[in-house]
């Protein structure tokens, strides 16, 4: 039985002390986000996750989803859990109050999502996709579309999907073949096949609202000719209740490595009735407005798995007795010491922990900026905050999901042979989290997004939202002698990142292949430097409060570990980036 105990102390730390929840309260619509709200919300969420979602994680993995006569049955306990989820108000947590949502800030919403992902990644996909569909409709839908769909999606009565991928194209959506033919009454007949559709068909809700990319008859070629349509599984009648069945069916369930309790469907649209969302041919840009949100969400999935893998590895290392400590026996009365005493086991556990807590800290900082970008009354402040979110989105998606995979694999390693045994649950984390590095834009695509779209945009303005505050922090914190052990490595990594950024931008302008060749290593270099910034800020807080408080002492110790045993990776990353792409280009294609 896997363990999970929501890291509420650390969540409150990153939210209140690091990001500063008082800044959140200064935003319109967040005035009530005080300790008496944050505490109960997080505690209730933790309770739901550990009591309802965690127990059906292993069984869901074993049972999986089944398809019969076009209907998908989710594993035992899932419909009940989903009902509990909606009744508890969790579906409506972040939704617009105008449509029945609770309008809770992203800063808190992201932490709730982390808990759900730790407890049951498969389950998180169902509300996660609804959230994406809600975003798309609220940003681009007509008032009628909003009134029809948003209240049902907010309450969770209906769920949503995002139908982008087709059998022959995923990353390059310009190639899609699904067609939309005008029906003459303002609606369109949608025809085509989509694959890898999460929550495409299931038994959790009475209706499923598909958001579908398709091409109009006069569409220009490529990505400039894609339009977005809303296609409900059941056509809502006059009363808004689900009516006639629409021409959309699940034709198959993908058999996959992990997230087996998530229904991943092949969908067939046969002259299905749909309505245009947003402007003709502007579907991809409409998609992109929610892509950022979705990518941050996938980053949170990586974080969630890293946390639960760490907790289970640490617990096992405490109990499992093997060998004697190299620096003196710890448990003379036992036949062996707990493996926690071994330096390599400690290396693994601290790596997991330093990455997990660092990612959570960076997430909290980013989520707060996200809230500012959505709610701040001043346009300049909104833009500055949005710049930061734009910049961090590909980094969070790729870095956090890589960290999730690394933590899952390290967790298995700590468990030794038992980590490879299915019933112990450790290998499920690895299988479940592996998809997060792939979907919602592979991590390679994230890296290209960073160097191609984020680096040079507006003369590098997005970068300013990171480089200026970090430099200001380094300069201010340099005055404090106790901070030296954190500031020196941070400023070294920061200087390296400045140099490499200028180099990548210049080379990329001359030769896009060079930018592509640098992208993945550059993203990780950026990500680790961002984590170093988060760790140095956490250390600054912890230094003032460490006396007599184990939480802050552990923070400082983890910060030291990060600075000394993880951050140096940036120098090898910089060397790799600066080596350039010639070796990638020169290799003869035939020899692969």
């Amino acid at each position, binding site marked *: 039985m896997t363990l999970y105990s929501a890291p509420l102390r650390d969540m409150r730390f990153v939210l209140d002390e690091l990001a500063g929840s008082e800044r959140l309260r200064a935003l319109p619509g967040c005035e009530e986000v005080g300790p008496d709200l944050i505490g109960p919300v997080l505690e209730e969420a933790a309770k739901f996750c550990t009591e309802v979602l965690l127990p059906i994680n292993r069984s869901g993995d074993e049972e999986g989803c089944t398809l019969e006569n076009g209907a998908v049955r989710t594993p035992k306990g899932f419909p009940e859990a989903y009902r509990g989820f909606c009744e508890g108000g969790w579906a409506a947590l972040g939704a617009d109050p105008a449509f029945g949502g609770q309008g809770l800030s992203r800063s808190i919403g992201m932490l709730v999502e982390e808990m759900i992902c730790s407890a049951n990644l498969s389950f998180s996909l169902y509300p996660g996709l609804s959230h994406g569909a809600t975003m798309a409709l609220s940003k681009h839908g007509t008032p009628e579309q909003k009134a029809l769909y948003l209240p049902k999606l907010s309450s969770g009565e209906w769920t949503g999907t995002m139908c982008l991928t087709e059998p022959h194209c995923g990353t390059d959506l310009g190639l899609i073949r699904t067609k939309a033919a005008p029906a003459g009454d303002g609606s369109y007949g949608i025809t085509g096949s989509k694959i890898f559709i999460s929550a495409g068909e299931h038994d959790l809700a009475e209706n499923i609202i598909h958001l579908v990319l398709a091409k109009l008859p006069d569409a*220009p*070629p*490529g990505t*400039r*000719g894609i339009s977005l349509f809303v296609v409900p599984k059941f056509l809502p009648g006059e009363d808004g209740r689900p009516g006639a069945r629409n021409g959309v069916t699940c034709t198959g369930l993908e058999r996959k490595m992990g997230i087996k309790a998530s229904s991943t469907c092949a969908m067939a649209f046969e002259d299905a009735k749909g309505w245009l969302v947003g402007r003709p*041919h502007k579907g991809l840009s409409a998609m992109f407005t929610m892509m950022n949100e979705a990518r941050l969400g996938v980053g949170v999935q990586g974080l969630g798995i890293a946390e639960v893998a760490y907790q289970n590895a640490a617990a096992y290392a405490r109990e499992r007795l093997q060998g004697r400590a190299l620096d003196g026996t710890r448990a003379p009365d036992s036949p062996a010491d707990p493996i926690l005493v071994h330096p390599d086991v400690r290396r693994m556990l601290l790596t997991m922990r330093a990455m997990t807590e660092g990612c959570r800290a960076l997430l909290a900082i980013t989520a707060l900026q996200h809230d500012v970008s959505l709610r701040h009354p001043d346009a300049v402040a909104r833009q500055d905050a949005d710049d930061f979110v734009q910049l961090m989105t590909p980094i969070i998606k790729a870095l956090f999901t890589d960290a999730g995979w690394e933590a899952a694999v390290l967790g298995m390693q700590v468990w030794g042979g038992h980590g490879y045994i299915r019933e112990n649950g450790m290998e499920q984390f690895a299988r479940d989290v592996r998809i997060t590095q792939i979907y919602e834009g592979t991590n390679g695509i994230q890296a290209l997004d960073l160097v191609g779209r984020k680096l*040079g945009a*507006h*003369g*590098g*303005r997005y*970068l*300013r939202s990171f*480089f*200026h505050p*970090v*430099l200001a922090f380094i300069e201010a914190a340099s005055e404090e002698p106790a901070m030296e052990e954190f500031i020196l490595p941070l400023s070294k990594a920061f200087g390296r990142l*400045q140099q490499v*950024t*200028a180099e990548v*931008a210049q080379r990329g302008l001359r030769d896009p292949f060079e930018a592509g060749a640098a992208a993945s290593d550059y993203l990780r270099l950026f990500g680790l430097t961002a984590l170093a910034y988060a760790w140095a800020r956490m250390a600054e807080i912890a230094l003032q409060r460490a006396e007599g408080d184990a939480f802050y002492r552990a923070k400082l110790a983890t910060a030291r570990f990060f600075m000394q045993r993880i951050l140096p990776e940036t120098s090898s990353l910089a060397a790799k980036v600066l080596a350039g792409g010639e070796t990638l280009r020169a290799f003869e294609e035939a020899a692969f």
Partner: protein
Amino acid sequence: MSLTTGAPMVETELRSATAPAGHPRPAMPIRKVGVVGAGVMGAGIAAQVANAGVPVVVLDILPGGAARAVERMLKTEPAPFMHKGAARLVTPGDLEADLALLAECDWICEAIIEQPEAKRALYARLQGVRKPGSIVSSNTSTIPLAALTEGLGEEFAADFLITHFFNPPRYMRLLEVVRGPAARAEAAAAITEFADRALGKSVIPCKDRPGFIANRIGGFWMQSAINRAFDLKLTVEEADAAMGRPLGIPKTGVFGLLDLVGLDLMPHVAASMKATLPADDPYVLGLREHDVILRMIAEGRTGRKGKGGFYAREKGPGGERLKRAIDLWTGEYRESEKPQLESLGLRDLRGLAEHPDRGGRYTRAVLLDTLGYAASLVPEIADSIADVDAAMRLGYNWAYGPFELIDRLGAAWLAKALAEDGRPVPPLLVAVGEGSFYRVRDGRLECFGTNGAYHAVPRPEGVLLLSDVRRRSKPLARNGSASLWDIGDGVACLEFHTKMNAIDLGTVEMIGKAVAMGKKGGFRALVIHNEGEQFSVGANIGLALFAANIAAWGEIEGLIEQGQKAMRSLRDAPFPVVGAPSGMALGGGCEILLHCDAVQAHAESYIGLVEAGVGLIPGWGGCTTMLRRWAENPRAPKGPMPPVAKAFEMISTAQVAKSAFEAREMLFLRPTDGITFNPDRLLADAKAKALSLAEGYAPPEVKPLRLPGASGRVALAMAVQQQVALGRATPHDVVVCDHLAETLTGGRKDHTEETTETELHALERRHFMALLKTPATLARVEHMLETGRPLRN
């Protein structure tokens, strides 16, 4: 017409009259000019003559019309006059009362209504007034020469030419000249000489055929581009996008150009071409009336001068600016849309012409029409394809003339495409076969002649083009941003070649390299010149913005310091350095000129220190040099404050001189700096200036300045507060002004002490960096890069 037996490609009489130094034929100097007709063209021609420093009489048929035209021109933008003083050289008069004023004129240019009878009647009157041997020319664009001289006698015909200017006469460099069979060679030579050197025109000899070169081909192109857009059902935006960037035609394309010149002009041009060209000429065969266009003209929607044209800008219900475009089938306005055709994203011209979508089919059709027609017109309208290309480049602002476009497509490709469509293949195209119309042999540019052989593209005497130097030699040094060339007689030329010639680290390094090579005795003098549209738009602020965004402050300050060092090294080098700008010399580009020992400027040089527009101050010695220029100006009041006030006023408001003459008034140029009207002659003039300085050259002495310090700053701050009160200065203007004032007044120094150049350069650096760290400055830089306009924050 047979190409093989036809005349070999002889240079026309006109050109041989101006050319080689070996056969000097003294051209009568033109010391005074008369212009009859004070319409847009006549008045503009008179203004350009005055710009050249030559007195000019301008007469109009309407009483007071000429005087009003001069008044109007003083308020026109872009300005016909290069400086206010030029207007004083213009003597306006009334045709009836003041005809006698023309008696002293060496050249009388007629620019009255396009009616042969009216023109002939005027010429008859001139015969009684003008002095013997004076030249009369007509600015007609449509009337055959023979019809103009008919019945006026041999003496008149001997002195008569057609001189066809393009609008606006100050800025358009093409002058088409037609010399009739009876005209004196000396008359053509005198006008060519004057137009070339004094007015800065490129004189292209033309045959006496309707529309000469540019309007014959340009008019035909417009007609084809309109007809084909209707045939192939393109939107106006699609047609203009297809004609614009890929072909190298200005981005107005065809419909945008019609809006600019006026739709109502079209029927007149059509009627004139129909009346003068043979009925089977493709131009006449292609004449068509489009109902939508006729309706637009009838409704007064004739373009930018009327109630909008194919495009119109309207205010939306919320006051937002809407761009509208005509639907060519309904004649109604709709929201303007960016074209989405795949073909229009292609950069390769042939790829575009072969693309199957309607953008590709359209481009192919218009190219086949226009280029096929142009190829069929040599030698009918001109003897040299190089003249045809030059006329289209200079008269229609095409980046490539028709024969250069054919070379880009491939002559054989065009011949094949024409044959495929069942159209005639012009003999010249057949003759060139698989070859190209231009080639480079032994470092010389050659063009294909009507006799089937290649001939060197002729250059008028005294013309030195860097592009010719580039063809025939290897650079002395080169990097990605700049090159150093040997231009003969021990003179080197430093050429910039970045986008818009923005200055980056490579440029600064090449300046250092040039100075080092000169110090080692590599050359006796250095000219800084390039053939770009702009001499230099200043430091590459895109790079600076990126560096600032990643907080690479050390690197930026290092570049500022390195730039200051490069500027000082230009001035202190043991050899003379001559700047030879044309077009914009802004910011860092201006600072380079300020550190040259002398400048030979194209008259169309636009010089200024514009850093304040992007929230910065000049950091490469611009502040320091402007202080010194005003301090050393003998006409300026004495004392520490006047130079500071002048430099502050100019820099804080980012003033740009709109001609070399204005630059002289603003002290960007010294009285001793030269001005050249014809850009083709700029490099040769600059080289001559450099050589004249080289003998016994010693670098200038740099004296410290006495600056007013804190008391001066108080005065400047008060002036700035006044501007704020008047609503002319924004909050960030005040910040920029504070830093500028601190720099120009000498920081902590005051008038009792001397402030050295080193100290001033340190002040420039410090305040430049301080401003660059403000978000408001970064927002200005970003806005300028993204919109090309200053942000007023």
